[in-house]
């Protein structure tokens, strides 16, 4: 079989570069083009120095994109929705890593993103590209949305509890995400200036964070609440000293008194056969719970939990690399699903230790 021809738009950014790295080594894919408005003509390695000596590809201009089998969009929020009709003429399958097609409902979109969605007629077609929850739909999909990096960790961490009906939805769901600097993309600015960003433990948007909407949508689906979870969701994010990586700590309250073995069973049943999810909960050692740093470059989402039986409370921890399982890696996994490939193709790097 000939290789899948893939192209990338927004290839000079961080998710674009990560996709290029992954697809270069993907056994079934050939990169045909990588577009960049600002770097057209330059070699990929002028922006992504890790790719030096590995490829001679140069960035093309976005307007020079040619038809291909699958097109990855790695543009800022808002940049792809208006152009989506055009992009779909270029490829029968499009994967958009931005937030533009993550929400099914234009109402939910409007509430969290403000303003009308520029292409509401496409919302119904797009699939939320999380293989663990939407594997079957992905095999048929032609328009797939990437997933929010903190949302991915939160949803994967919490899904088993919601699906099992264990959560007391009268009580709030509190989710605290700790996140590295690469999540904000490649454009420099005052908030990413090293002397100020270094060593930061910085709250941004303690309330009203947009990733909440994805939790509300996806956990809602699991609860049979198609208009979104009705439970109170308190999501906050704190930037920490880290380039890649997210750790989400979620506090949920339970309907009933259970013991920890129930949690083990629920998580094992949900994820025992998932190639990219690992349950991490150890009684000894240094790495007892999910730790994002050892996931840099890997597509794993590591998930742990701890029961506070007295308070009928579970603390769930989920870690991933925001550029991998939180963006490009997950997009490749979704692509593998769409094309019926082995889901792990091109995603075998296990992560480093120490690091």
């Amino acid at each position: 079989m000939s290789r899948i021809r893939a192209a990338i738009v927004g290839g000079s950014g961080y998710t674009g570069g990560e996709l290029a790295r992954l697809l270069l080594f993907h056994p079934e894919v050939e990169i045909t083009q990588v577009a960049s408005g600002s770097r057209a003509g330059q070699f990929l390695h002028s922006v992504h120095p890790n790719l030096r000596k590995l490829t001679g590809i140069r960035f093309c201009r976005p307007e020079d994109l040619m038809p291909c089998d699958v097109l990855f969009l790695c543009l800022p929020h808002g940049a792809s929705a208006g152009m989506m009709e055009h992009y779909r003429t270029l490829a029968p399958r499009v994967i958009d890593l931005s937030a533009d097609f993550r929400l099914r409902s234009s109402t939910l979109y409007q509430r969290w993103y403000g303003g009308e969605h520029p292409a509401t007629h496409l919302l119904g077609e797009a699939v939320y590209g999380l293989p663990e929850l939407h594997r079957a739909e992905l095999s048929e999909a032609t328009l797939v949305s990437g997933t929010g990096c903190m949302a991915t960790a939160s949803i994967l961490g919490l899904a088993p509890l919601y699906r099992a009906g264990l959560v007391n939805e009268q009580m709030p769901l509190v989710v605290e995400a700790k996140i590295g600097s690469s999540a904000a993309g490649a454009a420099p600015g005052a908030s990413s200036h090293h002397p100020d960003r270094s060593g930061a433990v910085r709250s941004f948007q303690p309330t009203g964070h947009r990733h909440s909407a994805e939790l509300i949508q996806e956990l809602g689906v699991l609860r049979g609440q198609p208009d979104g979870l009705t439970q109170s969701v308190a999501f906050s994010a704190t930037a920490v000293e880290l380039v890649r990586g997210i750790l989400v700590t979620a506090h949920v309250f339970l309907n009933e008194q259970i013991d920890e073995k129930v949690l083990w069973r629920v998580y094992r049943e949900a994820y025992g056969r998932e190639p990219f999810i690992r349950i991490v909960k150890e009684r000894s050692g240094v790495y007892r719970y999910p730790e994002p740093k050892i996931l840099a470059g890997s597509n794993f989402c590591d998930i742990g939990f701890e029961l506070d039986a007295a308070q009928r409370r579970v603390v769930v921890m989920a870690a991933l690399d925001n550029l991998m399982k939180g963006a490009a890696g997950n997009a490749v996994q979704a692509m593998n699903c769409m094309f019926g490939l082995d889901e792990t193709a091109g995603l075998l790097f296990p992560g480093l230790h120490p690091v």
Partner: protein
Amino acid sequence: MAQCPECAADITLESNAMVGEIIYCPDCNAELEILNVEQPEVGLAPQVEEDWGE
């Protein structure tokens, strides 16, 4: 004494303050426009939302 419309801090206008002048709230750093000098009053100046993270 004027009040910051954002955080209700007391804002003392300087003697040479002029209507339309932009000043800052000492507490919440809101950009404030002086609306009245005799009966001190300030309003929030229109502010472009900067991107400052994620």
